[in-house]
């Protein structure tokens, strides 16, 4: 115990370990999210914030000998008012992919169909509130996710979660996203597009 030697009889000892919230996030942070409201058993209203995107933004598709394409779909889940993280959740994700704008627009008309369903979303070890659906992005294009399940609210109750969004460069993301979605995460490009010097880009004389 830390003993204060002032004449005050009240002793305050403070042990501080300052760990910046979110310090484990990657270089860039192009993510979006939803805020989900619910009532506690005593009737008080609470909010949960779910932030969703790809790990290690900006993303690029796998290409042998150039880029591994490892960009898990990631979530950050916290109590909106306090910022406390939620370490317990039972979540799965349905995954959507469209090669280009034309394919996406076609799906807008005919309906969105997931490529994979009920993929496990797992907690990142040692980082409460951070969740991954591990994957390798195989192709450049438009990726979307629909996460469902529950988050355990500090041992009191399981709160239903429903978060759905497509990457922000899709022609009309609002056609896919849940209405309360805000912000956005980037679509996935070709690793060669980020090379410098790379392919010559032709510009108009006026540029």
């Amino acid at each position: 115990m830390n003993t204060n030697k002032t004449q005050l009889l009240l002793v305050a000892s403070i042990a501080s370990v300052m760990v910046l919230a979110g310090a484990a996030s990657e270089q860039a942070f192009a993510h979006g999210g939803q805020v989900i409201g619910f009532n506690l058993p005593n009737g008080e209203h609470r909010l949960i914030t779910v932030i969703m995107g790809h790990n290690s933004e900006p993303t690029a598709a796998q290409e042998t000998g150039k880029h591994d394409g490892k960009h898990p779909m990631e979530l950050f889940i916290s109590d909106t008012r306090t910022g406390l993280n939620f370490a317990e959740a039972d979540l799965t994700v349905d995954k959507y992919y469209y090669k280009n704008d034309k394919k996406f627009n076609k799906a807008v008309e005919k309906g969105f169909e997931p490529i994979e369903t009920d993929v496990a979303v797992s907690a990142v070890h040692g980082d409460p509130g951070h969740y991954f659906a591990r994957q390798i992005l195989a192709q450049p294009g438009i990726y979307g996710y629909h996460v469902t399940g529950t988050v355990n609210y500090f041992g009191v109750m399981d709160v239903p979660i429903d978060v759905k969004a497509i990457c922000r460069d899709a022609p009309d993301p609002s056609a896919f996203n849940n209405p309360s979605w805000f912000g956005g995460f980037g679509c996935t490009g070709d690793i060669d597009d980020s090379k410098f010097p790379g392919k010559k880009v032709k510009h108009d004389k006026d540029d």
Partner: protein
Amino acid sequence: MTLPAGGVFPLYDSSPNYVSGHFLLTSPCEPVSEGDDTYQPLVTAIAGHIDEHASGTHMEPIPLFYINTVSSPTLAGNGDQCVFHAHIPDPLNGGAPRVTDIDLVNLSGADIEFKPGHVVDINVQRVLGSIADDPYENGPVVTLERNVIYDLNDDDETNDGLGHSSQ
């Protein structure tokens, strides 16, 4: 140390960071109501944020858990020294959601005398964010009421609250 009626004793200020952690207080105490086996401290512990701008100030009493097994009403049969725990913040039982400041306030109407063994321990575990990013607004809100006391060890289930967040 004597804290006079209406006196304030600042304990902790982590501004601009709001934090999570655990709070321990030992204090002279009295039953929550006459004959009650749950005790409340004579002094009031408040937490939240005190801003240079009054509009950004928000302080509320900390929800406290009375720990009867190590308190003097159980051990010595008097109210000399009760032990209270709190979770900072406490999303289940209330209080200020974002805490940068913790103070003691004497709302008892009389002097409170602290003796050796009366202790405050504040264990900060994480920085949750910056109050500059998530400020309180439309203040000042300063709720000067005695602490709500929870007791998980008595027969009264109405004072159990919703448990604790383990953070």
